[in-house]
Every structure is written in C-alpha cells, then in structure tokens.
C-alpha cells in the first residue's frame, strides 16, 4: 500500500510538504541534504512551477509567432507535374488555365479543372459553391481564365490529383481573355481549348447513350456540338426540349474540344445566365382559313 501512496504522491500535486520531507519522493528525510531514499538533492532543485509557466508561456508565445509567421509566409507554388505521393495533404498554390468548370447546385459543390502546363489538377469545393459565387461574383472561374488557387492536395486512387479549396479568397483571377465570336467554318485545330461565342442552326441530331451530337451550321460552315444529358438536366426550363429540334438557332458560350481526333464544340456552363440562348425555328405562316 505504501508504494501506491508513493506513486500517488508523485502524480498528484504535493501541497504542504515541509522542509523535513523529500520534494522528490515525498518521504521523510529529516536534516539531510540528500534524500536517503531516492538520492535527490534537497538544495539544488528547480521548482516545477518554473516548468509549468514555461509550458503555458511557451505555448502562447509560440502560437502567436506561428500565426505571424504563417501570415507573412507565401504559400509555395507547385506544378501538377511535380506532385508526388509525398505531397499528399500539403497546402500549395497552383496557377494555370481553367479547362473546364462543373457545378452542382444540389450538392452546392464545384470542380474546376486546371492546366498549369505540366499537367491537370482538379480544384474542388464541397458544399461551398454558393459562398464562392457570392464572394467571387463575376470573377467565378470559367474556361479560358487564368487563375491562382491555394488548396490542400489530396492524392487518391479513386479521385486522382485534386486540391480542396477552403475559401473563395484562396482563388484569384490572374487574367481573363476577352471572349471572341468565332464562325463555325473558321474553327481549326489551333483553336482547341479556345472558349468563345458561337452561333448556328441545328441541322442534324444524333443521339447516343449519355447525350446527343448536334450538327450546327452558320453561313461559314458546319461543326459538331456534343451535349450531355447531365448538362441539359441543369437547365430546368423549356430549352431542354427545344435544343434538339431541327432548325433551332443556338447562341452559346462554348469550348473547342477534340474527341477521337475530330474537332467538336462543348457547351460551357449552359445553366449560367447568358451562356446559352435557344431560339426555336420560326413557325411557318399559317394559311388564311377558307371562307
């Protein structure tokens, strides 16, 4: 039982220990300078209080210095091509051109695919779309923009290379090219990746499992426009039915893409205002009723 009592003395605060007791083991020492039980000196001792206050003071001062240090520190720039397994969970900055943006209003989430010249990285925001839209407004990234983003790298077998962005202030627009209007017949391979405004009438519709390919035409020539059901679902209005009617005129923000070596156009955020205008074909003038 004595041993238990000794341990408790060691582990618990030891108030009221007088000069006749060893401050090390708590046992009676009488007039000695060195404890006969544990051999600790009774003269050359530093109070535990000193360590206590070093711990409290050190943590507060340390936290303040850490906070100041991090505020003035630049988040290092990383390139997608150099990211390895050891970068998993690191916080880093990425700069590059936005290749695609997909948003999900239901889940309040977004995915931005960024090309920084060395590879692709997906920037993600789960449950943050509304905050990002509110704070960024018009500067919310769209394909073709050059942006800088600070995110936490997540390297996973399921999702590949992604970076989670915690705050809209961690995403800044570096440049936004003016959106040009391009005629369909003048689109070449050099335009792959270009985001522009296009206009044409639907002349042919070829459905496939997950969407449809529309052949559209303007006076300069023809081009294929691939539309996925997932993109149409987000429109939630009459444009869903009208878009696949022959003769419909489409004015849209699109991106020049390539599939199996063929150039095709893709819609850019069709649900966003001003990005897709669908004009149904004009009704043929009805004949006057026979009298």
């Amino acid at each position, binding site marked *: 039982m004595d*041993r*238990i009592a*000794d*341990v408790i003395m*060691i*582990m*618990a*605060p030891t*108030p*009221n220990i007088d000069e006749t007791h060893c401050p*090390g*083991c708590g046992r009676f020492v009488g007039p000695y300078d060195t404890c006969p039980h*544990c051999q*600790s000196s009774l003269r050359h001792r530093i109070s*535990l209080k000193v*360590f*206590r206050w*070093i*711990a*409290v*003071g*050190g*943590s*507060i001062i*340390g*936290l303040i*210095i*850490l*906070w100041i*240090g*991090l*505020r003035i*520190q630049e*988040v*290092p720039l*990383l390139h997608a091509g150099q990211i*390895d*397994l*050891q*970068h*998993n*969970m*690191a*916080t*880093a900055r990425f700069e590059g051109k936005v290749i695609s943006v997909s948003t999900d209003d239901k889940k309040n989430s977004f995915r931005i695919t960024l090309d920084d010249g060395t590879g692709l990285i997906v920037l993600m925001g789960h*449950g*943050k779309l509304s*905050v990002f839209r509110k704070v960024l407004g018009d500067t919310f990234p769209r394909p073709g923009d050059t942006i800088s983003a600070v995110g936490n*790298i*997540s*390297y*996973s*077998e*399921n999702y590949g290379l992604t970076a989670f962005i*915690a*705050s*809209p*202030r*961690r995403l800044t627009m570096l440049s936004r090219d003016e959106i040009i209007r391009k005629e369909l017949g003048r689109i070449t391979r050099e335009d792959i990746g270009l985001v522009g405004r296009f206009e044409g009438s639907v002349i042919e519709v070829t459905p496939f499992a997950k969407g449809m390919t529309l052949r559209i035409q303007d006076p300069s020539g023809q081009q294929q426009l691939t539309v996925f059901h997932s993109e149409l679902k987000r429109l939630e209005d009459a444009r869903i039915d009208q878009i696949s009617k022959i003769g419909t005129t489409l004015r849209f923000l699109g991106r020049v893409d390539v599939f199996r070596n063929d150039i095709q156009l893709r819609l850019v955020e069709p649900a966003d205002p001003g990005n897709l205008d669908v004009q149904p074909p004009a009704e043929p003038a009805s004949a006057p009723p026979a009298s």
Partner: protein
Amino acid sequence: MTGYLTILAFCLAGTLSGAIISLIPSLHIYNTAGIALILWTHIEGIIPYTAVAPFFLSLVVAYAFLNTIPMTLIGAPDESASVTILPGIKYLTLGRGFEATLAGGIGSLIGILFLSVAMPLIYVAMPFIHKILSPHMHAILMAVIVYMLMSEWPKGEGLGRTTWERFRQAWRNVFAGLVTFGLAGILGLIVTSRTLVSPDAGFQNIMPVFIGLFAIPGAIEKLLSRETIPPQHISSSIELTRGDIGWSTLQGVIAGGLAAYLPAVTAGIGGILAGHAVARRGDRLFIVSGGVAKVLYYVGAFLLLYCVTPLTPMGIGRGGLSIILKPVLQPLPRELPMMVGAILLSGCISFLLLIPSTRLTIRLLSRVHYHVLYWATLPLLVVLVVFITGWAGLALMLIASCIGMIPVFFHSRRSNCMAVLLVPIALNMAGYGDTILRLLGLD
C-alpha cells in the same frame, strides 16, 4: 496459390515489423507507416500491390497489441491511451506489470475476435448508419467536445491553508484542461489552414504536432520522474472473471466503435464516453476494455474503408491508416474477407509475441534504467521530425510540446490535446471553415 503465399508472407512481415517498432517508446506506427509507404513508391516492386493493404494492416494490428508493453511498463502512452495508463501504472508499482500488459493484450485479442465476427454485420449496417449520421457529424463532434470538457471534475486533497488555496488546488486541473483544449484547438485551426512544413513533406505535416503534443511531454515527464520500477512477477495466470471480460468487451466496443467512426475521437476519448455509459469501475475492466478499444480504433477504422456499397461508393474512410493508404489503395468489398483473415492471423501472432516480448522488456528494465530508453528515444524523435519535416517541423513540434506539457504539469487530461483535430474538423463540418480562415487572416 503464389498470391496467397505472398499475402501470407507480407502479413507475417508486417506483424514482425510492427512488433519491433511498437517496442520503441513514444514512436507512433503512423509515422513509420507513412515513411514506409513513401519508400514503397520509390522502390518499385518491393511489396506487390495486392499485399500492400495486408502488410500495413498487420503492421497496425501488431502495434495495437505490442504498444501495450511501453505503455504499461515504462508509461509511454500514445494519443489513444492517455486515459488507460493510470491503472497500468498502479499494477506496475505492485509488481504486476506483466499481468497488466497481458490483460491489455487479452483485450486486444477480444477486439480482433469481435471485429472478425462482427465485420459482416458492420458491412451491412454501417452504410445506413453513416447515411443517417454523416449530415449531423459536426453536431455530434460538438457534443463530444462539450462532454469531454464537462466530464473533467475538480481534484485536490482539500489540504490548503486558506479557502482560496483549496479552491485553486481543486480547480487547477479543470482550468488547465480548458487552457490545453483552447490552445490545442487554436494550433489545430492554424496548422490545418496553412502549415510551416514544406509541401514536400505534406504527407507527414501533422506529425511534428502529434509528436510535440503526446510523445515529447510524455518523455519529459518520465525523465523528470524519480519513480523506479519495482521487481515484476511473471505470472502464469491473469486475474479476470467472465464478468470482467463481458463488461470490458461491452465498454471497449462502445469506446472503440465511437473512436473508429467519429473523426478525431481517439480510443481515450471514446473510453471516457463508454466508461460513463457502462457505469462500471475497476482497474481490470479499464485495462482490458482499453485493449479492445485500441484494436477497434486502429484496425476497425481502417476496415470501414471496405464498406463499399451503393450508399457509400467510396467506402467510409476513417483513421490514420486510411489517410496514409488512400493515395495508393482502391478498396474493393471482395477484399474484405482477406483483410479479416489478415487481422485474425496478425492478431493471434501478435498476442503470442506479446508474452515473450513482455518478459524480455521486463528483463531489460531490470538491467537498464528506463531513463536510458527515453534519453535514446528523445533524440530519435527530434531527428525524425527534422529529417522529414525540416526545421519548420521542429519549430511546430516545440510549440506543440509546450501545449502538451500543460496537462503533464497541471495533472489534467492529456486527451484535451486532441482538440488539435477535433476543433478544426467540427468547425469545418459545421461550415465555419471560411469564417475561421478570415478571422485568422490566413485565407
């Protein structure tokens, strides 16, 4: 057949490696597992892909068993066990350290058997539970935080000369607990927003913080201590009744289940909640249930990753090992029986290894003072931190060490240090992540 033998060989290799690493006081298995994974990616083919998960799982299983030795015999608890250590020390001072270690090991064996039997049920039920609970996770974590803080009672012997002195003695630990929780929470918010550690060491960017909060203060505490280890008796039986086993299984399963599923909740915190839920007291119950909880916390959490169902198509990734293996592992539900087999094999071998390892450690401690072990471990930890995370990591470790020392010197719960993860995770899940970043000026 070759595939089977390969997996078997790597299970054994993982168990043996884990057993050796576990005997080093204050060295956490996740630190070594992270480094091992990076080595694996650089030395192609050293472990075949199919054997990666069984190898690392066996490593962690062995740790859950054999870490009981440094925890009990030289008082080096990991983050999961700051609550379960006190009864172990009491046993040690009575010369029953061997018995206490084996009692913890028996708890771990019960945990492995429970997981092996219950895994099919967990696989079916967990996705539904996850679907119901996950939208409310922030509220659950907040409740855990409130419970953790409110369940720390004033201590003190009431021996002060004045009322103020007695009040101060009694409430000092409660106040120190709150201070520890607050400072660790702030540290967590800062390091999860941005970190001093270079992106090249991103995979271990939280390591200096954990070594600082748990390993360094524990080592310093032991180095300051004048406590000596009395001669230990090697017993051939354990004082346990069927009732003890039943109640500790229940308590351990509740504690480990909570720790395995709730993010940033460790087996120690789970133990506080489960202890109050079961309302049973006793050192044996405490030690055995601690062993059960540890297995569920380390191993069960990883197995949740294999709950790949239509409701949870990516599995329910929980625990440190899931985070470490996520970049290289694509879990398939059909691999779950293999994983259960691996933990059963590794668990049983680990238990068999526990007995001679405990004997060996007791013999070692009778010849070498435990201070020597800590004097060897302390520089090892510092070198590890500097080698992997650089001088910035060392600075982080020092700050975290100061915070980790507060509960050591003021005798409050060390599990309050887990606020380093609990606070940022709970606030982020509640949707306040952006606001916190803005307030800290780290956005």
